[in-house]
């Protein structure tokens, strides 16, 4: 579960291993502080999410924050590197197009979408783990899906509806 999440967030093995390593170290260090009334998986998810954010922060410009409106605007205008959805669509697979677009999402949106869509966490659980208001998490999800819809539409146009 740890590696899968790390890979979904990072999009490459190099960073995924880095994140997974951070997670295991944090688990080891903080196992003593695990609250027995908490779900182990929830606790682990929280550590993974924070490790993803920490990893991104370490590789981002000074002052970067994943969930502020300013950061979202900056990130929205600064796509992550990688081929765009239209380039991907020519490759054929809609899933690949969407994965590429997920990799281009701002990190906050990517994390929220991954945790909700792939892992099935409730928005309240995600908000709790990230220390955010639930409304913020809803907006992140909405924004992420909005961009994926746009990618889906582009792919359909590009492939003449075959995707």
């Amino acid at each position, binding site marked *: *579960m740890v590696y*899968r999440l790390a890979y979904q967030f990072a999009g490459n093995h190099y960073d995924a291993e880095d994140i997974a390593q951070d997670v295991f*170290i944090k688990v080891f260090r903080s*196992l003593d502080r695990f609250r*027995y009334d908490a779900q182990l998986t929830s606790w*682990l998810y929280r550590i993974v999410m924070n490790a993803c954010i920490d990893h991104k922060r370490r590789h981002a410009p000074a002052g970067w924050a994943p969930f502020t409106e300013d950061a979202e605007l900056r990130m929205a205008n600064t796509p992550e590197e990688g081929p765009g959805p239209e380039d991907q669509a020519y490759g054929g697979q809609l899933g690949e197009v*969407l994965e590429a677009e997920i990799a281009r999402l701002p990190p906050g949106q990517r994390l929220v979408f991954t945790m909700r869509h792939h892992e099935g966490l409730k928005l309240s659980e995600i908000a709790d783990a990230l220390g955010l208001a639930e409304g913020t998490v809803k907006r992140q999800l909405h924004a992420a899906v909005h961009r994926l819809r746009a990618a889906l539409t582009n792919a359909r146009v590009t492939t003449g509806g075959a995707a």
Partner: protein
Amino acid sequence: MTHCELLDAPDIELYFYGELPQADRVRVDAHLLRCAACRQRLDDLHAIRRALADRPVVDAPPTGDWSGFMRRLGAAVSQSPSADQSVDAVGRGSAVPAARTSIRFAAAAAAMLAIVGVGIYAAFRVREAAPISRQTTNVEIAAHPPTGPAPAVRTPDSSLREVTAEHLERSKLVVLGLTALDPKQTHAGDWQYERRLAGTLLDDTRLYREMAQERGMDDVARVMRDLETVLIETSMSEATDREALSRVQRLIAKRDLVVKMQLVAAN
């Protein structure tokens, strides 16, 4: 075209993901009947789900080889100040922490998460049996060659013990992963992942068990047999068998597998 009041709201996403209260679901249901744009948005979400469901799940380093990752992790943990503190704590004696852990475990077990509790308890016992101290010691030995008596001569048995200890360390992560899952809430992908991991360990486990039997290393052979049983039960289970994880967890607990693996790996 009429203006849709939900155009800029997250309601359709929340509806799709089952995050709306019942009253709001009814409201959105009614809205969908009359709004083609929102029906399209909902269809898009289904299309996204279908498309992503077909993508391969990447849940391990390339070629499934964890050895490099484990080496780097061991080195990172051994260099961590917190790890040193933990080693000290372990070294000062584990009786009191063990008792405290047992009490806390009993409280946890008395609550509803009995199976998960077993996993946590096992994890604590493993830590108290000093897995990290062994890793740290290995690193220290590598960094500071011994100056005292000549090192022990490596024999086939000692070499087998070394490789089986490494195998048990790798396998322990999988076994702990299995004990930590909640059978009622485990994502199908997680269960599939664990089954696949178990399958990758099976051949080596069988090989080490046979080698240990041939050389009369009964303790290694026994723990490998128990591990093999758990790996077979896990990897051969049907993906849709909801009871399989519970059976595997009972098996691990019944055979006290995590502790046995730790003891044999530490010998």
